[in-house]
């Protein structure tokens, strides 16, 4: 069938599987449209179908309201489907996703903890969900109070009193923090040009530094997995604006020299920035502010369990010390003397705005609900169990005898996550970390983060989180051991994995070489 707009649409009677694909011996040649359907929404439907019925025109119709030269000549070629077709298309697509609600997702550095449904229900209340961001503050007192209380809570957790909820993601919070650093130095009449980042840092750190107009200088790692103090001392001078650090770092190691690091950085007048990606390890146990950090960004989508949404939305509030406070973004939420709440933009030293409106308010509702649900004790216990689970999984892997093939890259214990090196496995069993990851998919597990941090060869970064049961951790450790055993006799099983997923290994090189980034008509 050919559409009026010229592109071919497969009908439901046509074969939806590509020819030439190996299928099960008893699989019928034609299947019901559904799970195996590989058409996009633009290849479905038919001219004239619709889901939307436009409200009737209830005002006198007028001509010439929009001059022809400003008008679109042809409608955008959007799909034409009935509502049932749309539902079926997207529900079937959803079934081609692995998700946290159905299985273990130990993606290191991403803190894939359970997302309580309470949060979704609360955020969907019309008083939150249909509140316009330009509503006048006297008509948004509940929202402003929620933001104010969330700010106080985050400030207490971080040990830094002043909070802006505005940034939309961790990387956005980083940009805010580094721009605050710039404003601080400029206000003191100083021109500094460099920002230090450890070589194990998240890639967003150096990218952010460049966007904020600074040069990146890498700091090395010592044999214990912490910051190389000699290297830091050598590089820390008056040209350095700040050091960006994650603690515990991306190796899952809490830097025991943190006080000395803070002293070295502060002695040259630089700012100490805390990337809060790993805050889930230390809530209630230690606070970045007490470690000497001046700025912290939170990842509400990690530590405070915003659903990850298949890649967003996130939320990256920052907390800062007194000396950084004048530079915080506007608007700020303030509590007036009469107890009411307001938004103020009057802050002459502020760096300004980093986005529209007040930030990702929907994520604030969820994070606030989480903090109120757990309270001080529950938050501390979340970090406790996160660390317990990570160490237990590590111990279980050792018990399973996989440590020779997948040794812990640094240290003996870990905080909330740990890094294994797949280098011996690759050498002795001829399977790479990537193969192990792909084979895990056949076992029903989402693999850990792979090939990060870059300083570990064939890295696997494992973060189980506190919301997983001991039984799940046992099963995961056994799956890893099983894959290694299997590879001893037949490494090809892993090397050609996955075998049971909706598609198998995809040609990423071809995708990048000749990019096809939209449906062609």
């Amino acid at each position: 069938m050919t559409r009026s707009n010229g592109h071919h649409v497969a009908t439901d009677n046509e074969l939806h599987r590509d020819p030439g694909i190996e299928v099960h011996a008893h699989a019928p040649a034609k299947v019901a449209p559904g799970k195996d359907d590989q058409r996009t929404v633009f290849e479905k439907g038919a001219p004239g179908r619709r889901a939307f019925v436009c409200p009737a025109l209830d005002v006198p119709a007028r001509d010439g309201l929009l001059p022809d030269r400003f008008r679109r000549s042809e409608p955008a070629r959007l799909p034409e489907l009935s509502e049932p077709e749309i539902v079926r298309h997207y529900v079937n697509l959803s079934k081609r996703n692995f998700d946290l609600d159905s299985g273990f997702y130990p993606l290191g550095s991403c803190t894939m903890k359970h997302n309580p449904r309470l949060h979704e229900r609360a955020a969907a209340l019309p008083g939150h969900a249909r509140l316009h961001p330009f509503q006048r503050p006297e008509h948004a007192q509940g929202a402003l109070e929620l933001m104010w209380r969330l700010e106080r809570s985050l400030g207490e957790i971080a040990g830094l009193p002043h909070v802006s909820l505005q940034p939309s993601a961790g990387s956005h919070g980083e940009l805010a923090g580094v721009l605050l650093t710039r404003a601080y130095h400029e206000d003191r009449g100083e021109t500094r040009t460099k920002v230090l980042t450890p070589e194990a840092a998240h890639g967003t750190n150096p990218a952010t530094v460049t966007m904020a107009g600074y040069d990146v200088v890498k700091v090395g790692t010592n044999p214990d997995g912490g910051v190389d103090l000699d290297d830091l001392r050598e590089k820390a001078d008056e040209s350095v604006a700040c050091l960006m650090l994650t603690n515990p770092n991306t190796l899952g190691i809490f830097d025991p020299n943190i006080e000395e690091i803070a002293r070295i950085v502060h002695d040259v007048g630089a700012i100490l920035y805390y990337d809060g990606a790993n805050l889930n390890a230390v809530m209630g146990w230690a606070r970045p502010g007490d470690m000497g950090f001046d700025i912290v960004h939170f990842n509400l989508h990690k530590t405070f369990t915003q659903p990850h949404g298949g890649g967003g939305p996130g939320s990256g509030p920052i907390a800062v010390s007194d000396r950084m406070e004048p530079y915080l973004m506007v608007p700020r939420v303030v509590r007036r003397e009469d107890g009411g709440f307001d938004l103020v933009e009057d802050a002459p030293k502020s760096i300004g705005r980093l986005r529209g409106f007040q930030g990702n308010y929907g994520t604030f509702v969820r994070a606030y609900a989480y903090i109120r649900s757990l309270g001080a004790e529950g938050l501390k216990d979340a970090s406790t169990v996160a660390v317990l689970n990570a160490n237990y999984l590590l111990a279980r892997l050792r018990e399973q005898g996989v440590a020779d093939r997948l040794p812990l890259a640094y240290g003996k214990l870990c905080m909330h996550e740990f890094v294994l090196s797949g280098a011996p496995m690759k050498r002795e069993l001829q399977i790479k970390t990537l193969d192990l990851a792909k084979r895990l998919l056949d076992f029903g597990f989402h693999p850990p983060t792979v090939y990060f941090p870059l300083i570990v060869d064939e890295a696997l970064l494992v973060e189980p989180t506190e919301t997983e049961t001991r039984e799940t951790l046992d099963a995961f450790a056994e799956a890893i051991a099983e894959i290694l055993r299997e590879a001893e006799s037949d490494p090809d099983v892993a090397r050609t994995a996955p075998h049971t997923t909706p598609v198998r290994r995809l040609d990423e090189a071809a995708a990048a070489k000749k990019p096809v980034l939209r449906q062609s008509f």
Partner: protein
Amino acid sequence: MSRYTAATDHDRREMLAAIGVASIEELFDAQIPAAVRLGRELELPAGLPEQDVFEHLRELAGRNTSAEDEISFLGGGMYDHYVPALIDMLMERSEFLTPYTPYQPEVSQGGLQVMFEYQTAISELTGLPVANASVYEGPSALAAAGWLARQANGRARFVISAGCHPHAIETLRTTAHGYGAEVVEVPLRDGVTDPGEWAAAIDAETSAVFFQNPNFLGAVEDAEALAAAAKDSPAVVVGSYDPVALGILRPPGECGVDIAVGEGQPLGNRLDFGGPSFGYFAATEAYLRKMPGRIAGETRDVDGRRGFVLTLQTREQHIRREKATSNICTAQALNALGGVVYLTWLGRRGLVELGELLLQRTAYARERLTALDGVEALHEQPVIREFALRLDAPVERVIARCQDAGVNPGLALPDRGLLVALTERRTRAHIDRLADVLGAAVAEEREAAGTAPPGVAEPAGAAGGGRAA
């Protein structure tokens, strides 16, 4: 033990034994130096049962006046469109709500195909060949285009129309200061970007030019003329568009725009007091490899099946680090899903019908309101879904009076301006009600001003967030 963790005391003992430490304390003592340990409990309220937390959040929600509680004509970048029920259903599905970025494409085909479909829809809407999988939101999308331009041509001067959203202008200023670029603002004349000043501001050192269409005052800009003015400069032409208006507006790709960005909220996303929503970002082929954010691409698996992957990742931070095109990585996948489902729900004809309906109702509202005593049009330009008025009365007080009568007439602008926006949810009856309420409020304020001592202006400092400037 909280309700989200499973480790019982028994579990904990056995787990500690497996680890080989005697206690939880020992596990932390071995790793965190005593000097930086928090020697007390966090000063936060005790945890609450689920039902108590819900009641608390319901109580807070009840102290907001949402679009559920009043007839609202607020706009200025976010709009109270109807969100169809199927979007709620799909966005709440575990399979879309709870995965992370599709790092493992074999088990992420659903999310990746949604991105591919979304990119296609945005490309169709904007008339530009490539779109990414979303950025954070509207104003920062515009700023991201500035950073792209800076990297593409090395120039450090931005020219931006005062018709852009004030938050977008401020965001561009904040980020541009970081990398040392200058921002020059071109004023409006008769409600649209002053063509003479615009042309005069663009020179050989201009990195990018930015306009918004329809602009912040609702006026339709002559995009083609604005883009043409930059033709002889190296400047990247950036247009920020209301995606709903693009149902009937000539697409930026046909007007000489290099990069189209905008706030995606009108497409099937809730107001949520400002977020999360999504920003869209589309460009000509020339800028593909400089784009920020994730991009999904089509490919084949080892068996020849069609499939989708994240592609062109050499732009991104995890590979390129400080040389990445942007620090934006994961953005707004779930909200972009809402966007593409909304566009599919509207469909090819529905998006046009929606645009035409808004055009007609907005014209009707503009006519009704400008006929009121003490109310005049701030400009006479063509508008689609939003228009600006000037009141002969203190605008904050007029708004307060209208809200007391259950109608939010719109957003206060400087100099007694009022920005009135419509969606398909605002019927003729609502517009008539607005006319009655606004007319009465203006009359009352004028009357009050007649008896008040001269020189008494509207109260200062009211409603910082409710004001655009």
